[in-house]
């Protein structure tokens, strides 16, 4: 109905010629658009997991910081679940409700461990670990505790420690610090090491002491040379063909011979001692008889003494036996 001669024709995106089979082409275009939109919606539903059966897992934690609806729960790096809702329980704990597709639920066992890790980059992640895959599978609606691991929680302590370390380093590297003084000493030491006396001069401090050390070493060298010549002479005297060792060997042989002779002499002495033992036993018997004999001799002697005493009394020129007091 539009006027083909109007200026509209030059401004609208309208072809100059009438379109052949316009209705059919427009219908095909509409069908194409409908298929495109329907395909996109179906793909979105498929990607959202609308066509696969799911089971629910409830994770209990005391802090849901970083947990958002739609985030993944991974097992060995593979996403096997998706957070559907995060809610606060009556007890004050946080309930993280996760949809796990039934085909992926076989990785979750009653002994599985769940962690909530807050990374430095990439936000929070929920991970599942199943050590024993032979344990009973996790039932639908199971409530499991989740362990918290916060990489940023340590940051404060790490920063504090790092600050202390930096302060220590700052003190060490200060102009009047110990490190500076040590480096100055090291520089002085290396300059001494480069000096004519080298390490000895650096160790002893003065040139004179270093000279003494050198002299002492030279004297020690001469002493060692003399000791070496003495040792050579000693070797010749001791171990040489006319050395002491040969005489010593002969002496030892003679000593062995003498010892053999001494052993024979001792055997003879042993026999003598046996005889002496017999003699001594005879003497012991004789000594018993000597007791009686001695008693007789004593009796006779007493008698003789008595008789002499009697004679003395009766004898006229007997000695004066009186005792005269002063």
């Amino acid at each position: 109905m539009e006027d083909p001669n109007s200026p509209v024709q030059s401004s609208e995106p309208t072809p100059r010629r009438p379109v052949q089979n316009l209705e059919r082409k427009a219908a095909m275009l509409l069908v194409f658009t409908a298929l495109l939109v329907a395909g996109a919606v179906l793909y979105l539903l498929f990607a959202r997991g609308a066509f696969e059966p799911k089971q629910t897992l409830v994770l209990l934690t005391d802090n849901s910081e970083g947990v958002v609806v739609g985030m993944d729960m991974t097992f060995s790096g593979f996403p096997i679940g998706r957070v559907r809702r995060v809610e606060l329980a009556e007890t004050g704990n946080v309930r993280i409700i996760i949809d796990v597709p039934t085909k992926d639920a076989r990785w979750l066992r009653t002994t599985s461990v769940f962690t909530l890790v807050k990374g430095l980059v990439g936000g929070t992640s929920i991970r599942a670990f199943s050590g024993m895959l032979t344990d009973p599978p996790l039932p639908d609606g199971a409530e499991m505790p989740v362990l918290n691991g916060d990489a940023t929680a340590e940051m404060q302590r790490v920063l504090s420690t790092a600050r202390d370390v930096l302060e220590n380093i700052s003190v060490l590297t200060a102009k009047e610090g110990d490190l500076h003084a040590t480096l100055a000493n090291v520089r002085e030491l290396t300059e001494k090491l480069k000096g004519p006396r080298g390490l000895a001069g650096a160790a002893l401090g003065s040139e004179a002491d270093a000279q003494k050390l050198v002299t002492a070493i030279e004297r020690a060298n001469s002493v060692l040379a003399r000791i070496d010549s003495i040792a050579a002479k000693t070797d010749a005297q001791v171990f040489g063909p006319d050395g002491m060792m040969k005489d010593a060997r002969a002496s030892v042989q003679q000593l062995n011979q003498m010892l053999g002779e001494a052993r024979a002499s001792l055997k003879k002495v042993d026999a003598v001692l046996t005889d002496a033992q017999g003699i001594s036993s005879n003497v012991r018997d004789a000594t018993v008889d000597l007791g009686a004999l001695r008693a007789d001799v004593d009796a006779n002697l007493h008698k003789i003494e008595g008789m002499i005493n009697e004679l003395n009394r009766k004898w006229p020129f007997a000695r004066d036996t009186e005792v005269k007091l002063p």
Partner: protein
Amino acid sequence: MMTSISWQSVSHAGSAPLRWLAGWWRILFFGASLLVLAGSPSSYGRETRQALLRHIYVDTAPILLWFTTLSALLTLIITRIVVVTAISYGLSRFALEMVIRVLVLELIPLTAALFVALRCTIPNGAALAEMRRSGYFEQLQRAGQDPILTAVLPRALAGIYATVTLAALSCVVALVIAYFGVYGFSVAGITSYTHVFGRVFSPAVSLIFLLKTAFFSLAVSVIPMASGLYDIEGDGSRESAALQGLVRMFAVLLVLEIVSLAGNYY
């Protein structure tokens, strides 16, 4: 003389905000009227159906191939930039999600809307202004036809349809190109790619995406038509109508984009 000119200037300056508000109100009212007419089966008479089919085909089909090629090229370049940058920073696991978010959620619908506006709806609005100026609408009314139903509604609906079709097609093309850009020519990554896609398009994000596309299509269709149909501001010339439509449409697209970003990320 001087006094009267000064009073006119003051009057003009003082009424500017009111005329600005009135212009927006007229656009809103026009858009609502078009939606009501589009939802009413009695609007689709034989003349309207013919015009609608012609505009749907003429406004969409010629630009479909070009825009698909353009969006594929854009997707390829941006995917490459994002992937290489992410790998260089050791953040390659976030590259795919970023590509989907940047391209499919944000850039492609906006590009489709702008492309349809520049190629179809702004020239259509200018054509309506020309028809109105040349008295073509009066000719239609004398012939017993409603110019809104036979001239305006088909153009507006064709603009909406073109925007939705181009956005859908370019999103699909962008998804395919992004997959090949990230995983290469292999089908090994389809599962993880689908998973990432599903994670990005949460129900809220999907709803915002659909609303954004719908409002983009409405904005690029209704505002140029309204600017061409009414003397909202200016002297009613064809260039002025096109310029007004362009400025107002860009402003609305900007606001919609900001609102969608706020809805997605806050």
